[in-house]
């Protein structure tokens, strides 16, 4: 079980959190069909450092972004 560094509460066990998918996906205000489809469905799924959103749902309730290495599962600072 991962220890996840919540920026508000510190290291807390994984079961207190909910993963909310890739971070940095911008919700377009005006978009053609292709751009909107990309917003809805296209994600990067990298092998390596992955920016992802988490919510400390059973803690402070805040959303935040972490960078996790998808091979080692280590949290690292932003590239």
């Amino acid at each position, binding site marked *: *079980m*991962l*220890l996840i560094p919540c920026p508000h509460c510190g290291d807390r066990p994984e079961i207190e959190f*909910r993963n*909310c998918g890739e971070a940095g996906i911008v*919700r*377009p*205000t005006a*978009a053609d*069909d292709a751009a*909107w*489809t990309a*917003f*809805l469905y296209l994600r990067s799924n990298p092998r390596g450092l992955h920016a992802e*959103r988490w*919510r400390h*749902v059973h803690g402070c*309730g*805040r*959303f935040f972004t972490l960078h996790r290495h998808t091979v*080692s*599962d280590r949290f690292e600072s932003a590239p």
Partner: protein
Amino acid sequence: MSRLPTGGRIDRSRPLQFSFDGRQLEGFAGDTLASALLANGVTVVGRGTKYHRPRGILTAGPEEPNALVEIDRGGGRREPNTRATMQPLFDGLVARSQNRFPSLRFDAAALAGLAAPLLPAGFYYKTFLSPRGWHHLWEPVLRRLAGLGRAPDAPDPDRYANRYAHCDVLVVGAGPAGLAAALAAAETGERVILCDEQAEPGGWLLSDPQESIDGQPAWTWLDDAVATLRAHPRVRVLTSTTAFHYGLQNFLALAEILPEGSRLRERLWQIRAKRVVLATGAIERKLLFHGNDRPGAMFASAARTWLNRYAVLPGRRAVLAASHDSGWQSVFQLQDAGAEIAAIVDWRAAPPPPLLEEAARRGIEVLAGHGVTALPDGMLAMPRAADGTLIRNRTRTLFCDLVLMAGGWTPTVHLFSQSRGRLRWDDAADAFLPGEPAQNVVCIGACRGTDDLAACIAEGQAAGAGTSLPPRVQRAGGLAVRAAVTGADGRSFVDPQNDVTADDIRLAVREGFRSIEHVKRYTTTGMATDQGKIANMVGLAVVADTLERAIPEVGITTFRGPYTPVSFGTLAGRHRGVLFEPIRTPPLHDWAAAQGAVFEPVGLWQRARYFPRPGEDMQAAVARECRAVRGAAGIFDASTLGKIEVVGPDATTFLERIYVNALANLAPGRCRYALLLREDGCIADDGIIGRLAADRFHVTTTTGGAASVLHMMEDYLQTEWPDLRVWLTSTTEHWGVIAVQGPRSGEVIAPLVEGIDLAALPPMGVACCTVAGIGARLFSVGFTGERGFEINVPAGHAPAVWQAVLQAGAPHGITPYGTEAMHVLRAERGYIIVGQETDGTVTPDDVGLGRLIGKKKADFIGKRSLDRPDMRTTGRRQLVGLLPIDATVPEEGAQLVIAPGSATPLGHITSAYASPTLGRPIALGLLQSGRVRIGTSVFALGSTGTAAPVKVVSPMFTQPAGEGENG
């Protein structure tokens, strides 16, 4: 009896009675089942899975592949596949051998051994891939032959628990290195947990009392070390506790087996350690020769354990088959204990001179450069040729009842590998050793390839203190495992539990399998319950030898947890029965239970489904409840609805962006049925939005959607529109909700309502008032198509208000109804249930609710997606009503087709009920271009394959008597 008169770590003052296959036997406290069986001269303990050859006890530890027995503690406590080497003996233990038919002594299937060529590697794959029908012939036979133990047939009555713990240092393995590490770490002031799978700490020291440490006899040092650790305030010593999983961030899982008679049977420990010291030791390797699976063939190290720890002489006349120095000492000790030594057969042409000199001094014959093959009552020793084969014209017959195998050592790197540390091949150690770690972990002692006792202690001291390790020390040596398997007899068993021979592996390689992962799966080498502890290295050597490649070029299979088998009870802990998951009950649950309600689970909630009267079945009860609501008044516990208080100056703006509806024009005191979409334009949830004030809304969600809707709202509020001044609070459990529905609902509640003019409360209105003296939010809404109210009161007051409403409604015939009647009533009116009529692909227009969308709004979640071509296309599946032509209620989930023989589904039935109001079955469904098809007929194709005609109609089966929220 083979028990020696003195010695060992058993308690001779405490004899214990036990039985094996019905035989009454005796052992001592401190015995394992295996040592007690050997002490009683029991040498055959099971049979192999494939050939059913008789098998004896091979090892003295957790790697045991043969001595798997069923332990029966009575009352459902029947546990298969218990390793006899790890089962502490207790008084009254009942053990049975497994995998034999009809009995251990005579096994009919052992004849399969005679037919060995019929069952080569990949037999199962080939059999089950062969033409259809063929496996029907084989399967029953194979199932009988290949079974391993009997699953228990009664619920486990024992208690299990789990604990979390944190420590500075977790030391796995309480052998000399681990003990030294724990002592040193405790000295530095760190919190230490030391665990060991054995019932007693000491590791290999328990088997080797002749050694000395710091000038003391080994057992004196051991007893002092254990006493010091047990008394230390910062040290926890866990025995009979196996670290079986090494997860991320030094999070390890341990299975503790408590002593027989404890309140708990097993306990799962989940430990987070700042650093981990692995002192997990090493496991001996078997040698490949014909007959190496016979009862009486065992690891040389195991023999030393039986002798020294349990005072058991495992045989009278022994042969050592060795390719490594380490076995010689075992033979010398057996001789000292009174066993005859028939010969030492060493694969190597030139064993080390000191060993040869000691053997000569003892008068033990040494056959160097020889190998062995089995005879019915002994072994045949023959010289090994340069290619490893045996030269059969120069044989020596060696009568014996014990064959000790010493094939070198495989460090127990399982946990290190699970921690994602890299393994590296080391030629000198002839093994994979721990390499670069991925976490804060260090390996010491035999797990690191060190075999010198003083060096093990020095490594432990360094690891415990957190300083760098001294260089690895290796004193014993042997023939490389790859060279030792060269030319080995094809009938030699590599994996004795899965009955894989050297020839099976060679065949797999000849058939084209190159990857060790593929060979493993094709031959099942190392896939038995010992997880390859016995077979993997030797099997790998055979593959390397056959491919003529070096072992590191072939690679190694992945180590995965658990290190040893873990019972489901340990993993489940207390999460069984009513504690399996939380149960949520609404405030009126106790009242409903007292009325004899039948409940159904809805998410974690228990909801009253219907209230049967004596003699009523579900259909009769539901029909009566429905008629009461349509004809007079019904009362319903709607407390499980999700509720969110949305407050703030920007609350209207926020809700307009979240829901599809226009809400800016919703006046305080009014409410509106609203739809929530996902960004892809499909319906996510629905509910009622009530406006209490300009900046305050009472929003309801579906019962199942409460948490996810709040999560979604928070997501947008925190990350998309952080500028909005809005606060969200879940109030689901704060409000008890009493729905009063039916034409007389107003009359029922009128005497109870104070503070407002009830007659002035319009349909789809909300007001703060008191009901039966309790402060309430009163909504004039319903989900039945009748005039109705939902009375929200603080949950603690709900039972009292419920009673008051019941009393006030009694003259009007008020009737409690459950979720089933609620479903029927809403379906008669064509109201959807999110998750039943919708499945994540359904838009508002699909279910006929396109009119709810606020046309002038610039944006809301999902708006852009509704403009995508696929969402606007014709031919989407639309909500329709369906009237079956015959009188049976169709199946929910039945496919809708245009004609009975059609294989093209046009949709499916989402809900189906017997409608008491209409006196006929009704159904809702999603049907391609459904609204155009109204008036036509389609067919409902059920799971039985029968197609029943249904008429397509409007989903509004009944016209509203009062006003529903969909209006």
